[in-house]
């Protein structure tokens, strides 16, 4: 019965860790999305410096968790996200509001997809 209990423990622990990971990922990504929304609000009133600083903070927060994100998420999706951030920062630098808003919304949407893909939903199962 020892293999049974060990296997059951491994399976239960794996399920618990993965469910926690989904919850943690959402709690990590959601504040970043809010920050990006706030940055967009600042950019609309042409406060480019604050918008740039907030977007940079989002980038730095992702960099800090780079190892965790690389271990748990598809690398292509992460690369796309980093590229999108770089694009948003570039538009902010050149003060192009239309392009920045489009890029920023795309970035927020990508982040949605990132943790959405990890969620235990019927959509993802099938």
């Amino acid at each position, binding site marked *: 019965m020892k293999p*049974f209990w060990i296997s*059951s423990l491994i399976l239960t622990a794996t399920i618990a860790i993965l469910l926690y990971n989904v919850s943690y990922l959402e709690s990590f990504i959601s504040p970043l999305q809010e920050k990006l929304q706030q940055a967009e609000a600042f950019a609309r009133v042409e406060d480019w410096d604050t918008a740039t600083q907030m977007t940079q903070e989002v980038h730095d927060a992702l960099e800090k968790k780079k190892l965790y994100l690389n271990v748990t998420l598809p690398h292509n999706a992460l690369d796309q996200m980093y590229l999108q951030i770089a694009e948003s920062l570039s538009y902010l630098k050149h003060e192009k509001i239309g392009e920045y808003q489009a890029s920023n919304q795309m970035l927020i949407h990508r982040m949605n997809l990132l943790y959405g893909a990890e969620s235990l939903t019927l959509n993802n199962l099938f």
Partner: protein
Amino acid sequence: MIIALVRTIILYLFIVIGIRLLGKRQIGELEPSELVLSLIIADIAAVPMQDYGIPLLAGIIPILTLLSISSILSVLTVKSIRLRSLLCGRPSIIIKDGKVLPKEMMRNRFTADELMEELRVGGYTDISKIKYAILETTGRLSVLPYASEQPITPSQLNLECREGGLPIILINDGRVMQQNLASRGKDSLWLSEQLRSRGIQSPSEVFLLTLDESGAIYYSRQQEPAERL
């Protein structure tokens, strides 16, 4: 490319350890669920080996899950006959009292050609001399001939035979297996005497030396290098 190499090593070791923990079965004796498991694991492992964009955990977690479920099911099948017959099926009698049972063959989708092939491989040419032929859950055919068709044993002739017992390896490719030596109650001194009596100076000259329970020794020297022509 170095990433591919390291990932391959990690996944290979992970799978070997996992399969090892499943138990000692050869590929030909796997139950259907175990065969499916092996095939799926091989497929899953290949994906992160080749695609660096996929995290290594995306391969490790499914494999770990499959091995855990398989281990749980294997314990439960030992405890529950019903579950065992559900997952592994039941053996089917294909030949009984020298007669083929067509219904059982149909039920198992076992053709006459396959039956004849299995019988030939087992050395049986006359079906009428077979008491039972059973199609096992692993797909192998077990053939039990009539008692009168089975080889005679010494006990049937009231003959006494020497029990050889289980041979264990004392020297393996020149290396002395100390634990095995001790398990037979022998020591290095005894081994040296045995080697000297056979014209061997050192264990390194021996490829294989075994000792069975009756004390009989078999040995084979290291092969001489092949001569160049």
